[in-house]
């Protein structure tokens, strides 16, 4: 399904988050959306409000779940590595995996399963090949700590760090089609040399 690019007027875009703004342009109106690791539900709330989506969230944190319910978001307590169990094939038009891929125990299995229950998958992740991370690693020999990768090694939830080129190669290997690729640096979209200059990549992929 091609990105809609503002077929529905965005009425309530009260978010500073560039990743949410980008995802809002990737989702078609009135579609069914599953957000894995939906946090406080803000993204689903924005999607529901602006694009009349029907949404479901999965989240592990109890307080975040409470906030989802306050926003009227349907949310299930669950961990992402097993949260998709029971959903039937093609239950959703879009599955969203934003800022969660790198924290998964079994990212390959989850992506495959996400593309089973969803026709499309939106994946957003921090780019480990961002030039400042490369410089830190190259110059100091230490594991990089950057705004998009803000954790020291001993407290990081990230299990599988990856780069934009890694993800593209993975999609090619698995035969997933990339429908849209968007890149962010310092809260702004960029296009030039993303693997070096982007802090974040957001991909829309399909089977």
């Amino acid at each position: 399904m091609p990105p809609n690019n503002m077929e529905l007027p965005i009425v309530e875009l009260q978010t500073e988050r560039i990743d949410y703004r980008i995802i809002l342009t990737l989702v078609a109106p009135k579609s069914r959306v599953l957000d894995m690791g939906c946090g406080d539900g803000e993204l689903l709330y924005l999607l529901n409000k602006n694009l009349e989506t029907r949404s479901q969230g999965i989240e592990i944190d109890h307080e975040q779940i409470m906030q989802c319910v306050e926003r009227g978001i349907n949310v299930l307590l669950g961990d992402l590595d097993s949260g998709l169990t029971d959903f039937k094939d093609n239950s959703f038009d879009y599955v969203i995996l934003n800022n969660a891929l790198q924290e998964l125990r079994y990212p390959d299995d989850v992506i495959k399963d996400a593309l089973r229950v969803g026709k499309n998958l939106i994946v957003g992740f921090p780019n480990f090949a961002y030039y400042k991370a490369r410089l830190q690693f190259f110059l100091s020999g230490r594991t990089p700590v950057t705004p998009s990768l803000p954790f020291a090694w001993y407290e990081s939830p990230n299990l599988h760090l990856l780069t934009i080129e890694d993800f593209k190669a993975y999609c090619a290997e698995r035969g997933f089609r990339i429908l849209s690729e968007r890149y962010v640096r310092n809260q702004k979209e960029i296009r030039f040399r993303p693997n070096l200059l982007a802090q974040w990549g957001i991909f829309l992929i399909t089977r």
Partner: protein
Amino acid sequence: MSNAASPEQRIYTSLRTFDFPELKLENGEVLNEVRIAYETYGELNSARSNAILIAHAFSGDAHAAFYHDGESRPGWWDSMIGPGKAFDTNRYFVICSNVIGGCAGSTGPSSINPATGAPYALDFPQITIKDMVNAQKLLVEHLGIEKLYSIAGGSMGGMQVLQWLVSYPYTVKSAIPIATTARHSPQQIAFNEVGRQAIMADPNWNGGNYYGREIPRAGLSVARMIGHITYMSDKSMAEKFGRRTKPDQEPTKFHADFEVEGYLRNRGDFFVRRFDANSYLYISKAMDLFDVSEGRPLSEKFYELEAKLLVLAFKSDWLYPAYQSLEIVSACKIAGVPVTYLEIEAHYGHDSFLVETETQSRLVKNFLARVDAAE
């Protein structure tokens, strides 16, 4: 449990009744001259669209909230029902009725059998959760309500919630099954059976014919004691009693040395005064017989649902463990029913649904406020 309101803050309520000529039962029998005892809280709006049905648990009754004249304790879920509370009576019209088979105003084994003029005792037919729900449906219709804004209940109340969804899928806009199951496990049946055996082993039970004579006090009391153990958790018992001993010891062997023993005896004694032993047998059997999907996958029963669900379990509840709630969640996932699920971190065991009100209140209140919101 619920913080008692000072006398001037108290809202008073009283039991009402609804009589109807007959109820066709699931087993083919017909119950004649049926009475349902119920209470309501708040006002039904002109569109009749703000009604919420509360279904009570095994030993509950219609008195879910507010105060009865002359009583110092409010209804059993007063912490959740009232102005500004989770089930906000400023917004919603809340109904709670005593189940068929009960002993708190609705027709049950202690009621007079119109055919004989004597109490039914064991001539009372074996009722089921479905029969309870069918009776509630008649009450709801009698109150002029076509569609319920929500239906909620814990434990056996949650079973009734599930049965409503399956029996009357188009009449429910939202549902809140709490600490419940789509069918009783062998362990749950086993505990109920021990309770029933305790009652039937009491000579005063007398084949169910004890009305107007000595009641099976000891048996019913033991049944309740077993129940109470299963409603608590190891942790909540340790916190509540520890190994503290009772100071007021009777000079007999096997008296209540420990506080926990004294507590259980008290609960048993208290229960005997308000609950009918035959109702215990009938209702506990109705729970054991319950299988809302009748041996089929639960999801098959959920495809027609228009409701959204809030499913709640409690981490320390070992009598109705979270896996049973997750089975309900699974069915929603398969059938595409919008669902919210949380396993609440409360340590009171199965009793959590009555005792833990902070997280529950927040979730229920916000969930109800958004029932009409787009998904």
